[in-house]
């Protein structure tokens, strides 16, 4: 991989351990209709990841349509368009005839970097860039070889364009005509990829392939699935995480017309009551008529107010050391005006993807079929197999288009899939759709963890930070999961310290330590993971320092960044010039906010124009400058950033927190946990992309971290207050 770095190698080893156990030696080399499929490699032998047989990815149909399998979930990030672009460009395919399909779970579709089939870490393009280009180039080579043989010439004499091979003497043949012969050609081991200047549409703005069906109601999401004889289930989940059913009174529930069964089921944590009905509505009606007594004996009842007290106490003591550079003891001797002591609070956050969580399963005794919008096909397939007493390869796992996810569809314990499988097991032969209502989702845990940060910064004579002591408190996301082995090092979960421990600011005297308390609330990665809070802390503090030093916030950042932090320096430079026209000429009552942050290899600088309307921040304009290496589809990059900033503002919403009281989540639905509406989002977002031919890095998560600190920094200029606790309940 062009993008392989030390840490990704580490990731890869970790994930490979997981996947070898899962794979059971099965190697799927083929699943498309063999009629048009390309050559299968000898005996379907397992092979190095880079030699994927193109047939599992490309199907050239007789009607000229080219079906490309996308090896990961599409849930908004645009990968269903971008990966086919890479393949089709190398293939010289006619783009207007390309169809993209989401591939089912199979070894061949595992992420080349992570070794499991998944979406995460903004790796969809970064990890499959080389893979999809090679697949396209190999397929093209086989088509050209077939044409050359047909015309008794050499491949070098042939050229390709728009799904046609052109040969000497004006001869030509379409890919569809050549597909059969090409299928008998060996898959070349090595191919030469196009030079940047030869790419036809990679690097250009290409519209999404999935727009029309998402605009006319024809696209089927997982929740829209309807199978003959299908039943629908909802589950009454315990009010306290891990509680167990003590007693059920279900007579009233059973009387609801259309209800088929009511029974207790084992959950990933505790137990619950499943209601199976002919349709969703009766199932939901029946669930509301259940009377359940819960056993919470021995369970920790998380309570946000208590947790803040505990976290604050923990934060005032040093924790497990993550970084110790230079000497921070000088801090203790500094006078108050040369020191900033800041404490930050970040609440639990729900992902609340627009399409509520769901999974459909039919269990047939010796096999099962599953339909799910999953970010974690390999893991979910294994979990379902385990519940049903099957081998993973006996579970056919279809990837359904998903209505958002933001991390919520990548859960190490596969609790939704386990729940569905547990119910489906009782309904042998009958397809079962499990639906989580919005209430299940908002109250169901797997949140971005609560965090507390305490930071002490000593200010040097030059106005730059002379010493930086930082304590972070928060649950470890990966502890107790198979991912801990490579994410947690020496007791520090790096998904909590990313953005602080590896800061690109030149902090010579830098000390970071962590506390990972155990709390009975399941937690999970939430789009941009640790950067959701670390960027806020770093960027609001840097802004405060710049203001104290009376230095322009862009200039201050450029001065403080390490010279090798190119992925941030280039965007800052671009932002500086691109926003020069409006940045320092804002209307009265407006203020500028600046931030920059690198995450998942992508550097972003952000400027916002903010005023206060109805006691809330109004973002009139935002601009980002982005260095994501080669922008495979600049339109998609633009769109991810425009909307990703809006998503990031979830953190600022007055009702943007999940809180617990006595073990119970206090919010139930979008009335209590309120994501941004159009009025809360930036009115306009300009996206400036740093021109680059470097290997691409992700754009799904990097928009999220920059916006909240930029807005908070603008607000600080308007109100004179520093905002250290999210959400922003009041100004």
């Amino acid at each position, binding site marked *: 991989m062009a993008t392989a770095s030390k840490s990704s190698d580490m990731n890869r080893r970790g994930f490979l351990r997981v996947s070898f156990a899962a794979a059971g030696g099965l190697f799927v080399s083929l699943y498309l209709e063999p009629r048009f499929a390309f050559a299968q490699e000898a005996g379907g032998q397992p092979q190095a990841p880079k030699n994927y047989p193109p047939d599992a990815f490309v199907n050239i149909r007789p009607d000229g349509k080219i079906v490309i399998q996308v090896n990961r979930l599409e849930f908004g990030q645009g990968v269903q368009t971008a990966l086919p672009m890479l393949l089709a460009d190398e293939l010289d395919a006619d783009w207007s005839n390309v169809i993209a399909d989401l591939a089912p779970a199979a070894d061949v579709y595992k992420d080349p970097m992570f070794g499991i089939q998944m979406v995460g870490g903004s790796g969809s393009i970064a990890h499959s860039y080389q893979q999809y280009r090679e697949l396209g180039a190999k397929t093209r080579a086989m088509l050209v070889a077939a044409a050359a043989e047909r015309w008794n010439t050499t491949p070098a004499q042939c050229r390709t364009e728009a799904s046609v091979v052109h040969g000497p003497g004006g001869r030509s043949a379409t890919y569809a005509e050549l597909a059969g012969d090409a299928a008998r050609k060996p898959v070349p081991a090595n191919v030469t990829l196009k030079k940047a200047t030869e790419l036809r549409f990679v690097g250009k703005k290409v519209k999404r392939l999935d727009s029309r069906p998402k605009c006319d109601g024809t696209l089927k999401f997982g929740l829209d699935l309807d199978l003959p004889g299908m039943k629908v289930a909802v589950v009454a989940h315990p009010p306290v995480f891990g509680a167990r059913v003590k007693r059920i009174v279900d007579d009233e529930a059973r009387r609801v017309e259309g209800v088929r069964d009511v029974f207790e089921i084992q959950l990933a944590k505790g137990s619950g009551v499943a209601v199976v009905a002919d349709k969703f509505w009766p199932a939901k009606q029946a669930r509301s008529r259940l009377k359940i007594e819960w056993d919470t004996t021995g369970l920790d009842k998380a309570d946000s107010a208590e947790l803040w007290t505990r976290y604050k106490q923990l934060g005032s003591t040093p924790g497990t050391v993550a970084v110790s550079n230079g000497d921070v003891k000088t801090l203790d001797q500094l006078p108050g005006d040369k020191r900033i002591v800041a404490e930050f609070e970040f609440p639990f956050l729900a992902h609340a993807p*627009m399409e509520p969580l769901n999974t459909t399963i039919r269990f047939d005794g010796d096999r099962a079929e599953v339909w799910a919008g999953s970010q974690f096909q390999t893991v979910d397939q294994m979990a379902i197999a385990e519940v049903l007493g099957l081998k993973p390869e006996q579970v056919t796992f279809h990837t359904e288009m998903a209505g958002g996810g933001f991390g919520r569809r990548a859960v190490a314990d596969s609790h939704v899939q386990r729940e569905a499988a547990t119910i489906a097991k009782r309904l042998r032969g009958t397809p079962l759709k499990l639906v989580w209502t919005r209430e299940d989702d908002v109250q169901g845990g797997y949140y971005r963890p609560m965090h507390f940060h305490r930071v002490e910064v000593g200010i040097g004579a030059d106005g730059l930070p002379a010493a930086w002591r930082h304590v972070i408190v928060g649950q470890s996301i990966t502890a107790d999961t198979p991912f801990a082995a490579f994410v947690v090092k020496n007791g520090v979960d790096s998904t909590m310290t990313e953005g602080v421990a590896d800061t690109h600011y030149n902090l010579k005297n830098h000390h970071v330590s962590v506390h990972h308390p155990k709390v009975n609330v399941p937690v999970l990665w939430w789009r941009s993971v640790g950067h959701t809070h670390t960027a806020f802390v770093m960027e609001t503090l840097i802004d405060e320092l710049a203001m104290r030093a009376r230095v322009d916030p862009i200039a201050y950042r450029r001065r403080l960044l390490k010279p090798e932090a190119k992925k941030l320096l280039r965007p800052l430079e671009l932002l500086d010039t691109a926003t020069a026209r409006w940045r320092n000429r804002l209307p009265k009552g407006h203020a500028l906010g600046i931030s920059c942050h690198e995450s998942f290899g992508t550097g972003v600088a952000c400027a916002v124009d903010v005023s206060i309307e109805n006691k809330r921040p109004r973002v009139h304009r935002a601009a980002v400058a982005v260095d994501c290496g080669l922008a495979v589809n600049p339109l998609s990059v633009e769109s991810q950033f425009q909307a990703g900033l809006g998503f990031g503002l979830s953190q600022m919403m007055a009702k943007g927190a999940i809180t617990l009281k006595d073990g119970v989540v206090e919010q139930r639905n979008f009335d209590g946990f309120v994501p941004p509406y159009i009025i809360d989002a930036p009115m306009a977002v300009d996206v400036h992309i740093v021109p680059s031919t470097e290997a691409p890095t992700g754009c799904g998560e990097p928009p999220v971290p920059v916006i909240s600190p930029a807005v908070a920094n603008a607000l600080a200029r308007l109100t004179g207050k520093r905002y250290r606790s999210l959400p922003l309940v009041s100004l």
Partner: protein
Amino acid sequence: MATYQLNINGQRKEVNVDPSTPLLWVLREDLKMTGTKFGCGISACGACTVHVAGVATRSCIVPVSHIGERAIVTIEGIGQDTVGRAVQDAWVDTDVVQCGYCQSGQIMAAVALLKHTPKPTDANIDESMGGNICRCATYVRIREAIKNAAAELTKGGE
């Protein structure tokens, strides 16, 4: 259970359901018209927006028994309408969608807006689209697409 004759996208449909069943679930489960989406069930997100007698309506909280003779238009039928088609085309041309799950509702809300306000201001957009959540937050492009559709529809009209 009761039988209802519904007028949906200009067609007569008969369903036999519990009277309390929200229109949303009648559409999705009894009529298999899944373009209208379930997002919250409490009238807070707009994913389930349809037109009832021309008014943008949250189908998740309207019991089927309250519909009566009123004509229902859903995302599946809105393309037959000039404004509906223009909005859908503007959505595609502007590359609005991400996950797409909220967009049926967004489009239905936008069509209702443009029908009574052919040239909406930003404030009109904030107001009419103000109750529709897009969790992907594609709001910048939604705003742009509404303006593009409005421009297309009023082209040459003055």
